[in-house]
């Protein structure tokens, strides 16, 4: 500014503008807090500290649980002669221990008669004991984690065995603890999941869900997803599931999904033995392994769980072990109830009472074509 004539109004303008700015800031602050500050100073910092502490609490619980699970697993493995069977398989043909049991003990060595000759067969590979231990350990740890008040993901660790009995677990998914989200239910209240039948609260989904990709719905942490499980479905399948839950509510019961969409990476990891089930280590022969886990690369039709239209499901408050035949029948009747087009919401895979498919899977299409609600 080169002339004194311009200097005076300029300075006046600066002061007026500054004053106006300060008055505006005052009005804004005053209206925001309604004249008083409702929150405490340090409240956010306190929330952060509490969140950190909750994390530490969970880690302590997991550490202790792992210690006890290992003790129990060693005992269980010794009792079963170093062998552990996979109780629930996602393969189409379930297979137990290849030589079966004798007097409730797994057979290590079998001599069979072939014609006039006797053919010995070694049924136990000692090298598999470590992997069997890992499998039992994971199952036991899951039970501990499921009894914790907040959701801790199960089957979430990749185990490394060191020395003799040192197991290092590397978590795949983080434990989520909400910070500053007062509107989201406190973790302890969500912990005591309501077994009482009720339609799914869609608001709950709006708050807590993230979409892994377009057209998918992540309903992990909701009443429709079993505690500790990851639940993702295609949008259409999810809507079918909500309808099935509505049908369940009418019957005074409730359903929960414990396995749904699986990414191809996850399926490949299962096949490769990079998951707690350790399929590849326990069943190195792919011809045997395929009886337990679906090979994502070895099929013309892709593994059903990769579609996002498949659920493994049970009645709420039950496990696959505690489901009675009446429970399975109720579940079947709920899941296959007719929609407005008089088509079944879901169809059952006949070999697995917990496995249902819908929407766009080849099995669902075949069932509709044949007019059945249960199909191989």
């Amino acid at each position, binding site marked *: 500014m080169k002339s004194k004539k311009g200097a005076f109004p300029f300075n006046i303008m600066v*002061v007026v503008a500054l*004053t106006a700015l300060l008055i505006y800031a005052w009005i804004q602050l005053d209206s925001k807090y309604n004249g008083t500050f409702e929150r405490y100073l340090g409240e956010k910092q306190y929330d952060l500290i509490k969140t950190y502490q909750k994390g530490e609490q969970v880690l302590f619980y997991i550490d202790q649980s792992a210690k006890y699970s290992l003790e129990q697993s060693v005992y269980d493995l010794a009792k079963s002669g170093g062998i552990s069977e996979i109780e629930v398989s996602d393969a189409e043909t379930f297979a137990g221990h290849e030589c079966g049991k004798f007097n409730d003990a797994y057979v290590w060595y079998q001599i069979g008669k072939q014609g006039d000759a006797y053919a010995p067969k070694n049924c136990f590979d000692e090298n598999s004991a470590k992997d069997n231990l890992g499998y039992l350990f994971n199952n036991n740890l899951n039970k501990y984690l499921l009894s914790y*008040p907040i959701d801790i993901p199960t089957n979430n660790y990749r185990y490394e065995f060191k020395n003799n009995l040192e197991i290092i677990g590397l978590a795949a998914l983080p434990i989520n603890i909400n910070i500053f989200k007062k509107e989201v239910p406190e973790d302890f209240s969500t912990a005591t999941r309501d077994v009482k039948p009720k339609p799914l609260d869609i608001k709950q989904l709006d708050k807590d869900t993230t979409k892994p990709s377009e057209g998918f719905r992540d309903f992990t942490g909701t009443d429709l997803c079993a505690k500790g499980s990851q639940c993702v479905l295609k949008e259409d399948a999810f809507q079918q599931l909500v309808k099935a839950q509505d049908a369940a509510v009418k019957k005074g019961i409730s359903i929960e999904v414990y396995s749904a969409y699986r990414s191809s990476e996850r399926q490949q990891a299962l096949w490769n033995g990079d998951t707690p089930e350790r399929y590849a280590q326990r069943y190195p022969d792919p011809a045997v392994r395929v009886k337990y886990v679906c090979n994502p690369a070895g099929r013309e039709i892709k593994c059903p769980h990769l579609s996002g239209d498949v659920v493994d499901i049970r009645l709420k408050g039950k496990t696959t072990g505690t489901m009675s035949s009446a429970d399975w029948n109720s579940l079947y009747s709920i899941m296959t109830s007719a929609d407005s087009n008089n088509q079944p919401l879901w169809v059952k895979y006949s070999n697995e009472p917990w496995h249902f498919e819908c929407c766009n899977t080849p099995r669902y299409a075949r069932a509709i074509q044949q007019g059945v609600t249960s199909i191989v």
Partner: protein
Amino acid sequence: MIINKSRKGAITSILVDFWMYLVFVLVVIVFYLIFSAMSKDVADKQITGLETKAKAYTNLLNYLKTPVIVDGKETDIAGLIRLWHNEPDKYKELLEKTSIGILNDMEYDYDNPIKGTGNRLVRGFYISINSEKKENGGLYPLLEFQSKCCESGFTVRDESGVGLIAAEQFVPVSEDKYLYVVMMERAKAK
């Protein structure tokens, strides 16, 4: 600020600058006073004892992780709590004795933070083991112990507050059961 090189203009410029600075300072002072008055209420709503609250969790974890020899094998207090839960008669005495010993070792003296008192306080600790966390926050201890300063008598209410839960932890005892362990901190005049 020199905005004009002529002498006449320079005097005017200095006067203008002087008044502008004066008004600016006055405006700043006025708003400082207004915001100070507003923040007086805020300062009263400050959370105190953040450090104590953070430390309480560490204290509880330290207690639960303290090594202890049981039946000739080393475990920790959390492990001993599990053993006690499974066999109460066998392990109750050891758990009580060890816990009280640890809590006594944790006690410490400090100056009363309340202005004008000038006395010393003893910080004591209380642990209760509960079968579950109640929704109403109430405690129904299966077992409880406290350090020697707080065994009986009057305790001073401080930033943690008597009877307020300072720290909590879930301790697994079996595949489908955990216990809810709570620590409280108390202060007593020396």
